[in-house]
């Protein structure tokens, strides 16, 4: 049942997936198992996006269905069995840049894939990234920027993290439609990604290894 439920969800069959979730709950299925099925489905959605079968509206729609399912599943959960988040990710558009469309999509995808996302917003100064790492102990930091100016801000931010002695405790990925290997090296980041799913797989790699 869980397997076919996950398939139905990753095929984005909204009504059927909701009905199946409801049915499973009524027959006494552990809510956690249902949510695990959702996670499997979201993995599959991500893979389809990477293969070019799915597009951004598909991703957003999958998130909507997930929210609807969570809304019926969560009330059935005992408090202690709160669904465990995979880990924390800090994200923000770096100083002197204000583009947030890509950042918001990445935030959304991380969220529905089970991460706790600390979104610092746009035009975020280096200190704010440093403070957030200290406060949350997050192991993954995502920096977004579209402007050429942003690459200098990324470099500056990573230098500030280094100067605070926090560089070894975090893995840093930069994103934005123009980023490449050269820019990654220039900024001192650990990875770069030009679409949301790359950020998700990077965070998974870091936090689940």
């Amino acid at each position, binding site marked *: 049942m869980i397997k076919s439920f996950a398939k139905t969800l990753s095929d984005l069959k909204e009504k059927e997936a909701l009905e199946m979730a409801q049915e499973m709950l009524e027959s006494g299925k552990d809510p956690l198992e249902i949510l695990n099925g959702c996670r499997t489905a979201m993995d599959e959605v991500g893979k389809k996006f990477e293969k070019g079968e799915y*597009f*951004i*509206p598909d991703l*957003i729609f999958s998130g909507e269905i997930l929210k609807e399912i969570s809304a019926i599943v969560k009330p059935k959960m005992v408090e202690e069995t709160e669904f465990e988040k995979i880990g924390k990710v800090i994200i923000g558009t770096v100083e002197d840049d*204000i*583009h*947030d*469309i890509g950042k*918001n*999509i990445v935030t959304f995808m991380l969220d529905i894939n089970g991460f706790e996302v600390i979104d610092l917003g*746009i035009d975020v100064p280096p200190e704010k990234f440093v403070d957030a790492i200290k406060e949350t102990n997050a192991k993954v930091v995502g920096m977004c920027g579209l402007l050429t100016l942003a690459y200098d801000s990324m470099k500056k931010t990573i230098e500030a993290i280094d100067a605070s002695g926090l560089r070894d405790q975090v893995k840093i990925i930069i994103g934005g439609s123009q980023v490449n290997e050269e820019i990654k090296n220039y900024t001192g980041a650990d990875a770069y990604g030009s679409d949301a799913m790359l950020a998700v797989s990077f965070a998974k790699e870091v936090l689940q290894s």
Partner: protein
Amino acid sequence: MLIIGEKLNSTIPQVRKAIKEKDVAFVQDLAKRQTEAGADLLDVNTAMEDEVNDMKWIVETIQQMVDTPLCIDSTNPKAIEMGLKTAQGRVMINSISMEKARIEGILPIALDAKCELVALTTDDSGIPKTVDERLAITGRLVDVLEKNDFPLEKLYVDPLVLPLAVSNDNALIFYQSLTEIKERYGVKTISGLSNVSHSLPQRRLINRYFLANCMNLGMDAAILDPLDSKIMTAIMVTKLLTNKDRFARNFLKSYRAGKLED
């Protein structure tokens, strides 16, 4: 509706290469073909290399071949200045906005030149998400220009369409902004179109229908690829459908010349 040909843009790898290598034939051919395809103006952008010097070179090179007016496209005041200084005849600036750097750098040039001018509805807090924010920025732009005796009939406001992929209502927000800006401020409107289809497949298809919708709402100019015969056909047909083609002269002429692409 004014058609502004978008091909002479250094973000297109081939064009960038041609600019870098000072390939006169390539640039002139692209200028000529866009003009023949029906472009009223040619957008020129040289941002990717030695922007200011390249602007001088490309303007001179184009104008040796065609006398189509140019739309000088840059965020760099020096490149805009160079473009205006070099170009002969009618010229357009692309673009100003309410961003501090553009107000300080490009607005004075536009006020001095009093030429046609594209203005984007954005400021230092980014591209607005709502109709109201777009209207508010337009209001501030119109204010600044009016106070400085800029002829508002030369202003083209671009209410910046955001990708549909990110939010279903982004095209609708653009249509509403377009309509309201025309009604409230009586200024012209323009769009670069292609952002609407970002991150979706079959982008040209979406761009075409989007353009037809915008034309129906009275959009005054569009920056597009005039070498795309399908979008040019869409323009022709939309004009026919909105009573902008008397006795279907242009439509039938194109039909007889075999230029309509189904």
